[in-house]
């Protein structure tokens, strides 16, 4: 029996040993509340401030531009809803976004629409990439806020965020990017790209689940989601999770330091995986194949095969991957991303294999072998 292999790094990653080590003191003697004035409090405050500076340095930001959140979802909510609520009733009433955003953005936009905003979906082509010309045309003087993800979480397509950010800046549109899947694989730098808001998440890069950050460019006004104390300048009240902030800062630094080598390594694994499966499943559809893709995501459709069965069988054979984005009940359901790029027309098993720290050459070999065996078997059943 082979050991199970993990191909779901886009869902989450294991906590890195360096991160665990960095957090350890805060579960021991350094337990203080950073808002306290005594020595315990001061100690905690210093660590928190350092963590904020370290995260800021990783994305070309100033430390006061980093707002720690509970993760990517909260960062996206704060950006979209907080941005909308602060601008509501001041002339511009449209929120522009794409149909392939993470649900954290889409649902926030829908919520804003329920509060009076007009939704505008930017066109996405069949590769899963925003069509830049039409996006620029759609980003007119009525748009208050635009939100475009940097790397799509299901298929890995890279969006033209620098161009859209520049366009938004010129048009006075508040621009947010969900950079959760981009950070660590793609350069995310607030000095070179004029985004106003950017979400990043800890557990995609080896920090624990439950920590993330929203970059908030200076002078950007947001209405907070929470109300309470004055922590984080009132943008995010609540006693800060110092341990997680420190762990997150450590993970961010490692991700930036290792980015170039990780990208090369992951892309090589991804290409071998893709070629290996395609060689035995010639009609395989690689979703987002024509897009510029982040190196860690491979999303494929095996036409004519039931996706739910394929995922069960892969797991029973020790290959952990996913059928899109994991939902609350853990069940596979139709992907809104594939639907948006018109793959609804191809009925078949769509599987996302995502690469990261646990990926090895042996794991790639094993995934190719099992995937192809199961695809052939499922074909036999489907056409029987």
């Amino acid at each position, binding site marked *: 029996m082979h050991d199970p292999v993990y191909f779901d790094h886009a869902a989450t990653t294991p906590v890195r040993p360096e991160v665990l080590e960095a957090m350890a003191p805060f579960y021991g003697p350094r337990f203080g509340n950073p808002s306290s004035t005594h020595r315990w409090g001061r100690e905690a405050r210093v660590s928190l401030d350092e963590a904020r500076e370290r995260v800021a340095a990783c994305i070309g930001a100033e430390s006061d531009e980093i707002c720690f959140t509970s993760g990517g979802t909260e960062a996206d909510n704060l950006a979209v809803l907080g941005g909308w609520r602060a601008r509501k009733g001041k002339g511009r009433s449209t929120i522009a976004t794409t149909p392939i955003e993470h649900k954290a953005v889409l649902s926030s936009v829908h919520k804003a629409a329920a509060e009076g905003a007009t939704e505008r979906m930017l066109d996405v082509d069949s590769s899963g990439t925003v069509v830049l010309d039409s996006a620029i045309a759609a980003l007119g003087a009525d748009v208050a806020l635009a939100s475009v993800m940097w790397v799509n979480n299901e298929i890995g397509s890279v969006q033209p965020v620098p161009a859209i950010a520049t366009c938004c800046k010129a048009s006075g549109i508040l621009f947010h990017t969900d950079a959760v899947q981009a950070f660590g694989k793609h350069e995310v730098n607030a000095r070179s790209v004029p985004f106003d808001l950017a979400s990043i998440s800890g557990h995609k890069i080896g920090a624990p689940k439950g920590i993330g950050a929203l970059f908030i460019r200076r002078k950007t006004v947001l209405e907070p989601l929470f109300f309470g104390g004055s922590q984080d300048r009132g943008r995010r009240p609540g006693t800060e999770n110092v341990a997680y902030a420190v762990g997150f800062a450590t993970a961010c630094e490692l991700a930036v330091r290792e980015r170039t080598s990780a990208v090369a390594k992951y892309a090589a694994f991804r290409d071998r995986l893709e070629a290996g499966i395609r060689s035995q499943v010639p009609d395989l559809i690689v979703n987002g194949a024509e897009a510029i893709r982040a190196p860690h995501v491979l999303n494929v459709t095996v036409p004519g095969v*039931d996706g*739910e*069965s*394929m*995922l*069960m*069988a892969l*797991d*029973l054979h020790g290959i952990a991957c996913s059928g899109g984005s994991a939902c*609350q*009940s*853990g*069940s*596979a*359901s139709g992907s809104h991303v594939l639907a948006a790029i018109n793959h609804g027309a191809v009925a078949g098993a769509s599987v996302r294999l995502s690469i990261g720290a646990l990926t090895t050459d042996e794991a790639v070999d094993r995934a190719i072998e099992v995937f192809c065996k199961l695809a052939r*078997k*499922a074909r036999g*059943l489907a056409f029987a």
Partner: protein
Amino acid sequence: MAGKPRVLVAMSGGVDSSVAAAMLVREGYDCVGATMKLFEDGAELPDRPCCSLDSTSDARRVAEQLGIPHYVLNMVDHFGRDVISDFVSEYAAGRTPVPCVRCNTFTKFNDLVAKADAIDAEFVATGHYARAAEGRLLRGVDHSKDQTYFLWGIASGVLKRLLLPVGSQTKDETRAIARELGLPRVADKAESQEICFVPDGDYMTVLRREMAADAPALVPGPFVLPDGTTVGEHEGFARYTIGQRRGLPGGFDEPMFVVAIEPATRAVVVGPRRDLHGSGLVAHSPNWLGDPPRVGARVGVRVRHRAPISSATVLGINESEVEIAFDTPVMAIAPGQSAVFYDGDVVLGGGFIRESRRAASAPALAGARPAAIPRTAPAAAGTRTHDTRTRC
């Protein structure tokens, strides 16, 4: 290691299917658990014996405790199309559907078997109180819990691969095993008798959601006597089922019941108990789990979940219909419900009731011979007539 074959176990999170899985694990089967998500969880359905997020979590925890993999199967589309839509259109047509039959016949078992094939599982298993043996389906040993009324529609091919571990024991024994195996979360769960997708036991909520506000089944219509006399107005015939007493006009000398529903005129026909007696019935779309019975065969027939099994004779049978005559008239035969045919404990098959026969009427099927319906007194009063409550 040559172990026992793989089994895909449908796990609802309730005690029966949890114990079924545990018993199979104990017997050495290579078990894989699956919970079927049949509809989107809404705020109006806080907890249910199956399908809610809580129940899915219970199933997952039991599977983890048993050391077996667990998956959630998304059957929302199929269930909506095959079961909920049918439920609504049956009420619109003045009939009384049994959604569990539709689910088992068209959705649950088909999907389970397809998934079983995909993961090389030789068998599928559920927590039903019924027995499968030698390709036949039998009533559960605990007759008070018998669920075969809901299972007549499954394909005979499925039956050969079906394991029903709890069907050979009583509910008390099942609960005892749950406690013995350390499954306290599920051992003492309250048992629900309600339709899984109906909030608070009020199916009108579903009909109001799914039907237009001015749908004939939801707008006022007349109460009429069998002779056509109007005796009142009701607020939509979908609220009524054959045999119902609740919500009828008063002022009669004897208890009155719904005896017929006529969608064309939106009339709910009310009459005394004797008008509820059916001497026989015609069922359509039959499914036979073995050889179909011949004309003249003596069978037991159940017309409602937990109704007694009544002796009857097959009057006529073809591919699409079967007609039977009861030895003794049966109360409140409701079109849309199932007629399930038994030979002792063995389930022969079943069909959907198209119509009931009054004592005087002629047989419907060509080639069928008139039945000799004894004019004896009907079954004793007290029969539960309006029982759409169910457990799938």
